[in-house]
């Protein structure tokens, strides 16, 4: 049994038919972690005992012939900003180092209701603020393809864990590309659904109007399956939406004949690595060969996405993170004379540098006299950007874009210049501003052997279109697992 490369769908089938035993599957993944974790560090917290107990329970129910959920016995890793009842949830921050939620996120509950088994919590950029998973208070996560490189972020732990075969699939969250970009860097499939499709209840908020949970998988089919489990309105999240259809797996056909693909010119001009551009072009050729109609077009307003995003995300973050004050949960400083000092020291000691940077920026753009010029302006830019995409999707079924300007950067390279790091979010951020679904999947490798991803965006509620295009591409470019990488070979 090699569980490190199997897809969740296949694994679920094998457990259901009795070919694999659920406890054995869980044990295998923990063995895999033992082999990988000292190199990759994808996890912050493991939950071995409970996972094994749940696996035993699943197995007992299979023995009794009970009908089980579609993910029965399938081990999942959860990004550490999703609340898990009784299981430490840190957001990779010292602030929540010892926080044990009393409730689970709706997404986690739905996975568990479908039989999935939570095996641990994955590392991330602190409070999801970053693009490299280097701002974690619990050490960096390394890219399984090259341990000297970052896995991307902020869902770097979730993507690295899937790439390294430490879980069958994982959950991430995406505020400005935090699922899609690390999925691209780690060579796995990452899906950000339409805003509101998956309940945010229990997702520790970064930018509430942009945050969306999504699956990280080793196949497009897995992404569709897990989306079916997760999607649906939730009475605990007023921004969750009721959709017309939830049969995402019905889109898994190779038939892309007549599919209209738009390619924004702006994304392929300056700043994009030539190897990345080349691979995307090849992928587009594959789709064209299968009958898709590929057209270049001018999207417009692309230069406004990043600034609008950072105003909104920082502003919302400054408010969302104000609840961390040492009163109700989490870290409290040890030495203080009064309330004001307790607040300030707790927050200054509990938060890392990048988080503080964004809280400061967010507090500023909302402060008296600046709201109109920054936050309100960003909301208006958001409206215009959304309009541009609506126009684009009146002509195209999907839009294809790069995921990131380059393949995974070296550790320590990105944090030197925060603005430069922010700018690298250019291709992913618009989907969050406009609420669009987007999927990333691996389409090749650069000369350094690092995975190159492609991003496919759809109009709001058109997940099926992007799943179909992704599925067709995947058939020609099947999934590859890394041989855990330079400086610590596990698989070689």
């Amino acid at each position, binding site marked *: 049994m090699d569980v490190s490369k199997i897809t969740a769908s296949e694994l679920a089938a094998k457990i259901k038919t009795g070919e694999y035993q659920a406890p054995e599957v869980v044990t295998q993944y923990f063995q895999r972690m033992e082999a990988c974790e000292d190199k990759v560090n994808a996890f912050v917290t493991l939950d071995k005992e409970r996972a094994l107990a749940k696996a035993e329970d699943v197995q007992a129910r299979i023995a009794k012939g009970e009908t089980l959920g579609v993910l029965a016995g399938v081990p999942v890793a959860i990004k550490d900003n999703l609340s898990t009842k009784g299981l430490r949830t840190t957001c990779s921050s010292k602030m929540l180092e010892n926080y*044990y939620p*009393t*409730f689970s996120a709706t997404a986690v509950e739905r996975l568990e209701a479908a039989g999935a088994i939570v095996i641990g919590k994955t590392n991330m950029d602190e409070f999801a603020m970053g693009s490299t998973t280097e701002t974690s208070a619990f050490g960096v996560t390394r890219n399984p393809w090259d341990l000297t490189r970052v896995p991307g972020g902020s869902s770097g732990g979730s993507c690295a864990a899937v790439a390294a075969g430490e879980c069958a699939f994982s959950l991430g969250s995406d505020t400005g590309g935090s699922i899609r970009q690390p999925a691209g860097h780690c060579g796995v499939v990452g899906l950000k659904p339409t*805003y*509101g499709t998956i309940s945010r209840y229990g997702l520790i908020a970064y930018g509430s*109007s942009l945050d969306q949970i999504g699956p990280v998988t080793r196949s497009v089919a897995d992404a569709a399956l897990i989306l079916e489990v997760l999607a649906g309105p939730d009475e605990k999240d*007023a*921004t969750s*939406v009721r959709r017309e259809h939830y049969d995402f797996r019905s889109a898994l056909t190779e038939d892309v004949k007549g599919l209209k693909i738009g390619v924004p010119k702006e994304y392929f001009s300056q700043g994009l690595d030539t190897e990345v551009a080349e691979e995307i072009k090849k992928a587009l050729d594959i789709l064209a060969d299968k009958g898709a109609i590929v057209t270049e077009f001018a999207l417009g*307003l692309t*230069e*406004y996405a990043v*600034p*609008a995003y*950072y*105003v909104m995300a920082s502003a919302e973050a*400054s408010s969302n993170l104000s609840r961390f*004050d*040492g*009163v*109700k*949960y*989490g*870290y*409290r400083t040890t030495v*203080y*004379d*009064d*309330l004001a*000092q*307790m*607040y*300030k*020291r707790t*927050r*200054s000691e509990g*938060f890392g540098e990048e988080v*503080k*940077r964004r*809280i*400061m*920026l967010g*507090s*500023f753009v909302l*402060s008296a006299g600046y709201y109109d*010029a*920054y936050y*309100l*302006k960003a*909301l*208006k*830019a*958001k*409206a*215009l950007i*959304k309009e541009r995409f609506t126009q684009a999707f009146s002509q195209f079924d999907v839009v294809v874009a790069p995921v990131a300007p380059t393949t995974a950067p070296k550790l320590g390279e990105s944090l030197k210049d*925060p*603005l430069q790091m922010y700018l690298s979010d250019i291709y992913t951020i618009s989907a969050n501003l406009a*609420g669009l679904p987007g999927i990333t999947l691996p389409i090749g490798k650069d000369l350094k052997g690092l995975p190159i991803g492609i991003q496919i965006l759809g109009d*709001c509620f058109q997940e099926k279109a992007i799943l179909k295009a992704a599925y067709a591409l995947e058939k020609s470019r099947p999934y590859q697992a890394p041989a855990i990488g330079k400086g610590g070979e596990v698989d070689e």
Partner: protein
Amino acid sequence: MKITDETIAHVSLLAQLELGEEEKKKAAAEMEKMLTYIETLETLDTEAVEPLTHLFASDNVFREDIPSGENGAEAALKNAPLVKDGMFKVPKTIG
């Protein structure tokens, strides 16, 4: 956008963050750089554009007025740094 010491002092008070002298300088420089970049937005014509506060908000979303789901004091206090008499203990507040 020039970020003065006063601005940094005001913003760190709003954010309830305590910055050292070096941190303050760094924060001012970084914020200035970021805001200068953000000012790109000024070149965007947003005259007569309605701000988009919520993406899909055509239907009202309500909860009915029926009690349920209380977790109680134990759950509320489970992660509290300091507790006394079933309450969260904090430094003395004024008023």
